[in-house]
């Protein structure tokens, strides 16, 4: 099986890459929303992320990727108690997917042919402890969106249908991508994404040449290319693992909290989720940079991606909310 295009070989797109690394360091930040035109490397980045992430320990064959034996749901009927290393799951949620497929449903074949009431786990089960990737998230049907909102909020998937009553953990990082020209995202779903980034094609010819050179090398000279970039990927993976450890001991000063609160107040961001996400993102960024406390630099760096989708819509501001955030950040943090 061919590995996906390596994460570190993606040219430019620093903000998108950073946002993904931050959620890998601290999954509780929430998801990442990537908005941009077609052919800007959104899907490539998400698929690359899967290969980059550190492996997880899971009970072999567990449908919800449980870490410990006692977490395995009783309907799974597992024989082994052995655990093994597995790659972090990255699950695709395609457009037009049925509710049954997302939440899981009664295993109809078993019900009809063997008269057995069994549960067939869905995509949410598969995505537990990993990533759920939705391409063209803005075209997703409303009832699937509702369902995702509910699960993303509670971290638990509850199936009550056809005589089944089953619940299983479903904690995942939502990654959505889409093209804003084709439709907007409901504010409720927008708010669920921790970070939001806008991507565009690289602006300089040199960068673009790099993009096609690397992609071409990946496709024609796969072996050598992977050897070259695997080392870089391992480096980033190491940084993520170190940061995951460091984040627990990282100090949050009152000054930083005041800065964050002031920033959100000034921007008029709705709700308190903005503050919390900004704090978490800044902390993860500080850990990534191997600093010991959150400073203004960290807040400044992550403020646009943590806040740009939480501003009230200004229909005439074509410049994008990112610019507005940066402006206010400059005002507040100097």
């Amino acid at each position, binding site marked *: 099986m*061919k590995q996906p295009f390596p994460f570190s070989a993606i040219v430019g797109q620093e903000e998108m890459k950073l946002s993904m690394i931050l959620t890998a360091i601290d999954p509780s930040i929430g998801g990442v929303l990537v908005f941009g*035109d*077609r*052919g*800007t*490397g959104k*899907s490539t980045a998400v*698929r690359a992320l899967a290969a980059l992430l550190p492996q997880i320990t899971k009970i072999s064959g567990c449908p919800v990727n449980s870490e410990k034996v006692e977490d395995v749901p009783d309907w799974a009927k597992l024989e082994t108690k052995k655990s093994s290393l597995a790659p972090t799951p990255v699950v*695709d949620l*395609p*457009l*037009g997917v*049925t*509710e*049954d*497929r997302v939440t899981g449903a*009664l295993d*109809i*074949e078993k*019900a*009809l*042919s063997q*008269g057995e009431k069994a549960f067939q786990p869905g995509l949410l089960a598969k995505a537990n402890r990993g990533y759920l990737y939705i*391409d*063209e998230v*803005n*075209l*997703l*049907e*409303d*009832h699937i*969106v509702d369902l995702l909102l509910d699960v993303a909020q509670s971290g638990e998937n509850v199936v009550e249908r*056809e005589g089944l009553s089953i619940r299983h953990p479903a904690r995942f990082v939502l990654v959505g991508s889409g093209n804003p*020209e*084709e*439709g*907007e995202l*409901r*504010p*409720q779903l927008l708010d669920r994404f921790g970070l939001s980034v806008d991507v*565009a*094609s*690289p602006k300089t*010819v040199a960068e*673009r*040449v790099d*993009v*096609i*050179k690397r*992609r*071409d090398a990946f*496709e*024609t000279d796969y072996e050598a290319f992977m050897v070259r970039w695997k080392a870089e990927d391992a480096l980033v993976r190491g940084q993520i693992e170190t940061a995951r450890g460091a984040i627990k001991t990282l100090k949050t000063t009152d000054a930083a909290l005041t800065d964050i609160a002031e920033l959100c107040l000034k921007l008029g961001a709705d709700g308190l989720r903005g503050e919390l996400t900004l704090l978490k993102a800044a902390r993860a960024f500080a850990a990534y940079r191997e600093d010991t406390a959150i400073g203004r630099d960290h807040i400044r760096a992550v403020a646009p991606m943590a806040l740009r989708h939480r501003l009230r819509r200004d*229909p*005439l501001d*074509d410049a994008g909310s990112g610019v507005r955030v940066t402006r206010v950040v400059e005002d507040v943090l100097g």
Partner: protein
Amino acid sequence: MWDRGVLALTLLAIDPAGLGGAIIRARCGPVRDAFRECLDALPQPLLKLHPTMDDETLFGGIDLTETLTLGRLTMRKGILGRNGTAILAMAERCDATLAARLAMALDDGSLQPLIAMDEGAEPDERTPAALGERLAFYIDLNIASSDVGLLPDTAMIESARAGLASVDVLTETYETLVGLCAQLGINSQRAPLFALRAARAHAALHGHTSVTPTDIEAASALCLAHRATVLPPQPQTEEPDATPPDTNEQDTDGGNMEIGALDDRVLEAVLAILPDGLLDQFKPKGSISKGSGAGAKNKSNRRGRPKPSRPGRLSGRNRLDLIATLRTAAPWQKLRGASKGRIKVTPSDFRIKQYEEKSDRLLIFAVDASGSAAMSRLAEAKGAIELLLADAYSRRDHVSLISFRGDTAEVLLPPTRSLVQTKKRLAALPGGGGTPLAAGLIEALTMAHQARTHGMAPCIVLLTDGRANVALDGTANRAKAASDAEQIARQIRTSGTEAITLDLGNRPAKFLADLAANMDGLYMPLPRADARKMSGAVSAALEG
């Protein structure tokens, strides 16, 4: 065009993984049939796809019929993952859902190559963009049948495949392709990649050891022409500026000249193919694909008010009504010789759940109550609205009323079903002041957003004389007011809200017709003294 189509097919056969596929736009006819023969001449087997395919045929799954007859689990292989050239017939009718799945399959390599046969007749009937983006070629085969030429040469394909890996690519080639994309306004990074792969396949086909300018020319014509969004400035004069700016800093000796010359040549080759009016196709950004959650969808097999189940086949997109299925199977158990405690179910017993979902419509009237409108025909407009209200009442629609005059817009009536109240507010609506058209549209758009979150299907009815003279910031500036209004109109279209524009002016205004086009909605000059006729027309538009 025919030769180009055959060349595209040949290149695809040489490097299916790198090129993804092609869109072939051709109406039914001898040319299309001849082209199908070309496909049959290709070495790979053909797989047929159609726009209404369900997931099980595509991805494979449990073969329910077999499983039940044999009494053991039988799996069926899906089309994806099988080896061969996939042909999607009637690609223009492929919906966003299927396009998303096929795009996924193209991305992970389980489907390659894909030939999308696009039979669209109108410019807006086209293969979904998500798919077109991932296919290298676009061939318009609407040509005379006398142009039909040779079939692809299988022997050459075989030898080219063997030679593909050893074709070299010079650094200048990358730069040329990227520069070309920049000039043609192509932002997607898939485009230069496709061109590169096509050039390499072309080189292999002609036995070149490295990619030559001819290869680049041919590849760019095939891959880049249809993706162009701007025409490059015509560099006819022989000045140094004519060479693309991007290569200037690379090196200053003779090499530079060569690259510039090559760029120009390739560019010319691409321009030669650009069909007339191609750019017009791209300007209105195609039709905005409305998320299917937008509202007025009536029948659904997923949610809504349940309807009686009907017999049907499980397709992966609908749900089995288990109780109804068992009920259908029950009377036959003895005949089928079922043993005790086991029920024998055959596929003909399947009952599929059906739901009906109907969202309420909200008519948002945005009424221009400015001085200029009042002067002309505000009273007539009021009459027209009243007639529409009566209509709305009989359909149980919700209505709301927004007026704009002076420098702001105001919501006179939030969404309601109360006809009496609406009439009262309408009668009391005074006229006078400037025309803040953009402000009125924003108010309507905001309300449409809110309505949608409440599960209603909003529709904006704009009544104005189009003499916008107050900009969004409150200044009296005619030009800015007009451009503001246009901008909001485009947002209304993006939001997928239906909008109808009624012109209250004494003479139909071009500006308003354009505005309506921006909103992708109906435009109608208010017919003189015949409010009833207009209300009929609007009702008809709403029904349609």
